């Protein structure tokens, strides 16, 4: 099975080939289900000029926020940002470009990118600043705007468990954008909490089939909680 064995031993190998000015798709919602060690490896490699596509951009000192420290991100495509002071500073100073995209449109752009669909019509954003410069068409009397798919040079994904074949399952709401990013990367790298023997994961329960996955690595995770709320 060597040809289908997606396991790599080091984070350096996991992101081999990542260079300046590439587009990186990242899974995660807030700090939930983020590929924290792959982000750390991007920081270590020092690549710059990146376009990063992710729902959010982390916080100061954690998540994608760490890539702002050395100004590695040139452009951010996200639905909600600004949970970090450094992001705000770079945005206001013009060092960082931001393309705000509705959350469902962002998810669908990745899904479409991975599915070979170059663009799709959606009612989301019609009549708003998001529609500016985009083609509008009517279907059944309703207005829709044309949104283009997104693909990346790399996708960085956080899974729960994977097997040697790169089949992945996610845990709870740490799923979020991860399976979508996984489909749309030219090279898709998944880091997981556990690599299990082939056959352990039930075929009918796989979230991301191994065909989308190029590299799998096992890591340890801090899993920082952004808003800790407990029952009174």
């Amino acid at each position: 099975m060597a040809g289908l064995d997606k396991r790599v031993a080091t984070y350096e190998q996991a992101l081999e080939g990542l260079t300046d000015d590439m587009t990186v798709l990242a899974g995660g919602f807030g700090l939930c289900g983020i590929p924290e060690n792959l982000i750390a490896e991007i920081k270590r490699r020092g690549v710059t000029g990146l376009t990063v596509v992710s729902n959010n951009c982390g916080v100061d000192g954690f998540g994608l926020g760490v890539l702002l420290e050395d100004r590695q991100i040139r452009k951010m495509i996200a639905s909600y940002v600004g949970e970090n002071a450094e992001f705000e500073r770079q945005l206001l100073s013009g060092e960082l470009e931001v393309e705000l995209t509705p959350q469902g449109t962002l998810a669908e752009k990745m899904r479409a990118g991975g599915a070979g669909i170059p663009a799709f019509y959606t009612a989301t954003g019609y009549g708003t600043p998001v529609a500016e410069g985009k083609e509008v068409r009517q279907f059944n009397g309703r207005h829709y705007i044309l949104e283009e798919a997104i693909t990346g040079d790399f996708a960085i994904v956080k899974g729960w468990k994977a097997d040697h074949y790169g089949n992945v399952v996610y845990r709870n709401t740490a799923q979020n954008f991860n399976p979508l990013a996984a489909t749309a990367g030219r090279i898709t790298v998944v880091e997981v909490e556990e690599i299990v023997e082939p056959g352990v994961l039930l075929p009918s329960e796989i979230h991301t089939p191994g065909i989308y996955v190029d590299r799998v690595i096992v890591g340890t995770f801090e899993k920082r909680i952004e808003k800790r709320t407990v029952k009174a």
Partner: protein
Amino acid sequence: MALTREQMAQRVARELKDGYYVNLGIGIPTLVANYVPADMDVMLQSENGLLGMGEFPTEGQLDADMINAGKQTVTARRGASIFNSAESFAMIRGGHVDLTVLGAFEVDVEGNIASWMIPGKLVKGMGGAMDLVAGAENIIVTMTHASKDGESKLLPRCSLPLTGAGCIRKVLTDLAYLEIDNGAFILKETAPGVSVEEIIEKTAGKLIVADDVKEMTF
């Protein structure tokens, strides 16, 4: 008296029906979950990929992998399901959610809503709001009737960049419950002790007082 946040949530909860799938936005809409009648089964959708959001966890249940769209730690209730973000917005955009409740800065007589961007101030993003207003048939906007400076938020035309065009039919403010129809706000209910005159005065957009306008009771 203007409604409290809790009373607003209570009033919105009267729109719930047994068997509804409901998406609640951040702020007052979140409080609606506290007023679901005990004899009703209502499933809450959280757009980060959870259908069947439960209560906040105990210390022992706390799980970094289980959050809601407001990034708070939550639990999943019995009968819940979890899925990816594209699936989540397929439910929303596809019109499968029965009721959506969200806040706004402004609403106008054409059913336009502005809720995400104030020019000149830092824009953090629309998150899922544009998808929610575009996808839902049944939306209730909750907001204060006027700004802190006394400026009406119910306008002839939204002044801020829109979140969605022509998609709002129901508005609950701290002073009134109104519906939007035919280019006007229709005043259906007043908050206890708030006069129709006060609501007329604080509504900048065209306002029609319904024949059967009534006072809310709590």
